[in-house]
């Protein structure tokens, strides 16, 4: 991928709104707008933030029994995913590591899958090679916009009343400002909200209609990262990767009971063993006691001075009002309340293991 960074259908709008554009996973994306990361973060928690997530891969799967076939690649119960519902999941590899995390929706006559921007080149051939009789089509002509926060229902609902009646993890097709969109009530900020798939030629028009609401402001990748971290949500490449298993990543909740019991997905042997016996390490919340943020790769030590793990995501949490982090600690550690030291620039800084999330999730169940 040596080409110049790609632009989403909203690029011109980002520039017009003063977005500071950066290269992210091969895409020219706004890291922030003039409001700033903290302002955008706080606005999303208080009212509504609008994020361009068009860089993510949108894929349509058509064929017979798509849900059952997806179960051969993922430890989720997609065969029983009801029409109009979405479910978080991941592709596992033969070693039980996570290849990518994704959202799968059952759209009735097809399945709609959203994968990470940087991994579409892995995921699409993976599905093509392993989903027999399924037509895998990546959509290149649609933007994906997330409207997140307690006011999201009003922002989206004023343009599309049907969106108000949706529950968390439901997905519908409906008109917004006269444009047919796929609307899913989900997101990755810990707040209530929607992700809306919009035809690219209408993307700016529909996005402007959301932003015309007094409570809705554009927010960039910076705020998206601090929001998801406070919500205890994993970022692929930081917190989860090909080597980490879902059990290590504390993603047991995302694997349904039948799948955990029956197996039948790549790496099931390791994952079922770890479910039964515990994993060698696990992902936990880590709260630095002082003010210094602990960034990715900072070493975690127990109070005796032995290395027990590493920070995988760490930043300043604007809602928490201090530094927040996630990281792996080895088995035998990681109970909430446990005191640890973080080695920041060569000095041990006190911290404590805490339960995730840092900020209570606010979904519309």
């Amino acid at each position: 991928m040596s080409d110049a960074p790609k632009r989403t259908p909203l690029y011109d709008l980002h520039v017009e709104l003063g977005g500071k554009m950066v290269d992210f996973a091969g895409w020219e994306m706004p890291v922030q707008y003039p409001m700033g990361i903290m302002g955008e973060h706080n606005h999303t928690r208080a009212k509504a933030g609008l994020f361009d997530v068009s860089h993510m891969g949108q894929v349509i799967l058509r064929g017979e029994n798509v849900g059952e076939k997806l179960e051969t690649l993922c430890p989720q119960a997609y065969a029983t995913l009801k029409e109009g519902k979405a479910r978080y999941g991941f592709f596992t590899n033969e070693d039980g590591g996570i290849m990518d995390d994704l959202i799968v929706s059952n759209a009735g006559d097809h399945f709609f899958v959203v994968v990470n921007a940087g991994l579409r080149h892995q995921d699409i051939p993976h599905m093509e090679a392993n989903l027999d009789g399924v037509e895998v089509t990546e959509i290149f002509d649609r933007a994906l916009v997330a409207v997140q926060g307690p006011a999201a229902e009003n922002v989206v609902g004023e343009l599309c009343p049907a969106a108000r009646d949706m529950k968390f993890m439901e997905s519908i097709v409906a008109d917004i400002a006269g444009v047919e969109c796929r609307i899913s009530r989900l997101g990755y900020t810990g707040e209530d909200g929607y992700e809306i798939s919009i035809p690219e030629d209408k993307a700016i028009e529909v996005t402007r209609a959301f932003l015309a609401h007094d409570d809705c402001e554009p927010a960039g990748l910076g705020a998206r990262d601090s929001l998801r971290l406070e919500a205890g949500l994993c970022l692929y490449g930081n917190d989860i990767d090909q080597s980490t298993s879902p059990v290590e990543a504390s993603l047991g909740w995302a694997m349904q009971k039948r799948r955990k019991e029956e197996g039948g997905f790549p790496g099931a042997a390791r994952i079922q063993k770890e479910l039964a016996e515990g994993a060698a390490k696990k992902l936990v919340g880590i709260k630095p006691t002082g003010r210094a943020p602990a960034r990715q790769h900072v070493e975690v030590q127990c109070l005796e001075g032995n290395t027990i793990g590493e920070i995988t995501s760490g930043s300043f949490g604007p809602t928490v009002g201090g530094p927040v982090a996630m990281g792996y600690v080895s088995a035998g550690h990681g109970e909430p309340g446990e005191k640890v030291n973080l080695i920041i620039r060569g000095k041990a800084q006190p911290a404590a293991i805490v339960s995730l999330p840092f900020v209570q999730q606010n979904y519309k169940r």
Partner: protein
Amino acid sequence: MATYYSEEHEWVLVEGDVATIGITKHAADQLGEIVFIEQKEAGDEFEKGDEIGVIESVKAASEIYAPLDGEVVEVNGDLEDNPGALNESPEGDAWIYKVKLANAAQLEELMDLDGYKALIG
């Protein structure tokens, strides 16, 4: 009294043999919202180019490099509790150190305001 600027985006206000050091508004704007500063202590000596502190914004950590040789004589302790002042008043109240100059000749290696403005365009 004269103000000098470094390529590392610091300002150096010289009064006699003591210089007040801070980061420029341009630097603060580039860093974004500052949430943490790690400073040296009074009495610490350093040479030009040494790392004399770390500033962390929401986004990332950035080192502060000494614009000249010296010794810290006073630290702006207010910044520890209010690092955001570095965004609000980087060239005023949010100075970082007062230092005793060890080699005043090094001032000639720094820029004046016009030179700095040319650097940042």
